[in-house]
């Protein structure tokens, strides 16, 4: 809260935002998302290539020297808002948001020149396996064991659940514990002893997998025992991007609700003329714009390396998760019976909201960190 600089989007930001809105409006209509519900549609390589070829999105926030566009988190936030709005099913969050960020935050020259460029424009994407069955994204929860063999090759054993795109990613990164602490490893997708199973997601547009390893060869990425700070900061980045996605999705829920309330008539008048409905919509607006303000503030704080940035992320993530869940639920209520059908997209957003509320840690977990950061005794 001590950040007092004026932090608003520039004219360039707004133009970029409009470009993204136009692209996704056209490229990701409802029918595109519906295929993920109705068919066996999974990963769409053509869409992933377009994001790179047309806008360089996978490398948007990667420094130019490593092949990226050198933008900041605020630009990624604007992209995520639009992806959330249309519910784009994509490895973008897991790869560009989480894995790339962790790699960059390692600050390791070899990683930056070898691994990072692979994620910028080769068409590859990465998955980072870091959680255990508890679903906790904390240091203590890292339970995969890595045993060293003298050089940079280790053997990894353990199970990691809730890995974004973990069954598909050409580049699989695993956080594991060695005798000297938490380290990051690259595992070949076809390595012996590796089993990757796609999970049946509550939200079919969010691909999750369980990764099981029995003495799997892993190549050390960066230095042994020092990966946690980079993972922690990468998780902060990803949590913020998830919050941005939630803002965009929540705003779409609000727009759909307002549109329905304007056009649906009962008792001879639009239901949006009833205060009970009006006030729900106003509360949606309050939550959407509040969440957006918190997300932008945290993005600027991270981009400026503000010492309070991590707390600002906790605030933005805790608030946006709750806000999106609330708006998605109220959207169903405003739509009445039609909102409870498989046909209507309301449940897509409800599923995304419910699922996202648990990704990278719950709002309750974030508030635990906030309380500690406020100096309350533990």
């Amino acid at each position: 809260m001590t950040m007092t600089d004026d932090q608003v989007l520039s004219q360039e930001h707004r133009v970029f935002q409009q470009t993204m809105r136009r692209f996704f409006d056209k490229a990701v209509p409802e029918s595109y998302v519906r295929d993920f519900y109705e068919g066996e549609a999974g990963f769409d390589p053509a869409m992933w290539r377009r994001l790179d070829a047309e806008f360089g999105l996978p490398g948007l926030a990667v420094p130019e020297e490593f092949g990226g566009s050198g933008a900041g988190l605020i630009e990624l936030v604007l992209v995520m808002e639009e992806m959330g709005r249309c519910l784009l099913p994509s490895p973008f969050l897991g790869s560009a948001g989480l894995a790339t960020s962790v790699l960059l935050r390692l600050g390791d020259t070899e990683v930056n020149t070898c691994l990072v460029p692979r994620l910028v424009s080769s068409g590859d994407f990465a998955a980072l396996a870091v959680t255990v069955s508890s679903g906790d994204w904390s240091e203590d929860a890292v339970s995969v064991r890595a045993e060293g063999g003298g050089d940079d090759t280790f053997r990894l054993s353990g199970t990691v659940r809730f890995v974004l795109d973990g069954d598909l990613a050409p580049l699989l990164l695993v956080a594991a514990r060695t005798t000297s602490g938490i380290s990051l490893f690259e595992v070949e997708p076809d390595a012996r002893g590796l089993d990757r199973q796609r999970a049946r997601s509550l939200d079919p547009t969010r691909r999750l997998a369980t990764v099981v390893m029995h003495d799997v060869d892993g190549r050390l990425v960066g230095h042994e025992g020092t990966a946690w700070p980079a993972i922690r900061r990468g998780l902060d980045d990803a949590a913020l991007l998830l919050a941005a996605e939630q803002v965009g999705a929540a705003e779409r829920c609000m727009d759909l609700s307002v549109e329905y309330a304007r056009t649906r008539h009962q008792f001879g008048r639009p239901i949006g003329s009833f205060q009970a409905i009006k006030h729900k919509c106003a509360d949606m607006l309050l939550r959407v714009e509040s969440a957006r303000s918190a997300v932008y503030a945290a993005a600027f704080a991270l981009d400026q390396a503000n010492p309070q940035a991590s707390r600002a992320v906790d605030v933005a993530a805790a608030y946006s998760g709750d806000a999106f869940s609330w708006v998605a639920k109220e959207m169903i209520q405003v739509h009445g019976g039609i909102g409870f059908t498989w046909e209507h997209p309301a449940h897509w957003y409800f599923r995304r909201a419910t699922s996202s509320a648990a990704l990278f840690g719950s709002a309750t977990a974030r508030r635990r960190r906030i309380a500690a950061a406020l100096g309350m005794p533990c």
Partner: protein
Amino acid sequence: MSREWRASTFREDVRAFIARLLPRGWKGVGALPVGDVDAFVTQWRDTLATAGLLGLSWPREYGGGGLSHAEEIVLAEELARAKVPGGAPWDPMGMQMLGPTLLEWGSEAQKAHFLPRILRGEDRWCQGFSEPDSGSDLGSLSTRAVADGEFWHVDGQKVWTSSAQVADWIFVLARTSREESAHHGMSFVLVPMDQPGVEVRPITMLSGEREFNEVFFTDAVTHRENVLGPVGAGWKVAMTLLSYERSHVAATLPIQYEQEFERLLALVERRGLGRDALVRDQIAQAYTQLSVLASLGRRVKAQISQGGPPGRESQLIKLAWSEYHRDLAELAINLLGPEAMVVEGRQGPFLPYTADYPGAPISSGAWIGTLLHSRSDTLVGGTSEIQRNICAERVLGLPR
């Protein structure tokens, strides 16, 4: 002799200036013995006036500082941060509301007469908008002003008028034509209080204090020139006035509430509840709200200072802050536990939807005062229900 202020280094200069004036170990107005507050505020107002810090954005020819609205907001922030008021309790009506509105709508003679008198403290103003039968539906008001020769004759009743008991003038929204449609045919009339046709009766609030009043007009008179803006344009003038009030409040409330939140943390510590998981979650939730709303406020402020029109989020500020503060007061009372049954220490004093004075004790009396007063947060300046209607209709385009 008022001093010169430079826009380029204003924040640093004014911060240093305030720091030099405050007594050593200054903890805020709330830390003064209750009996000393009035004297301090009076003397502090004189200090600000002498330093040229009253009416900072008003043109010099009317006694102002000749700087911009941006510096005035910076000043308000720095004063709040230093835990001192920006003037006397009745000053906001004259300095933050009527003054800027006079500058926008007033005739040369009106500006030259009224503005310097506000700054010198010679005229105290109060606001006559709400009526017993026209609260949320302000457009239905029925107080009338009828022109007759040299004078307007005013008849009707206003209510919830803060500071009427000390005011010299009241700005009145009154019907001046027979046109009955809401928002039309109203004028913004300036009426002197000291006359037989104006009667003030105090209203005791639920907190037990007397801060606002009923004002009765029975053939009250004011000179024909004392209409602000064109006759019939009263509604527009009134809306201008309310927008000035809002931008000021948006800048200073976050600072006040941050200071209040520190007192809440101190209360948790005093009650020994810091390890309670539920309390920790409640405190973190309150902090999250506070922090989110501060970001929302900064976004609105930045848009205004860049000269752009405030976005749709500006409409949310009042609604958001008032509900935050109402909830915070309830949390504080919960944390007090059984102590909340007994009023320990002083209670109040307050202005509408503000926190207790900075530096106030962590006593039950202070929080009970906050609780009682917070019930007005979601009523004054448009109830939460009206705010939601406005958001839904004007921002989201839902039908009336």
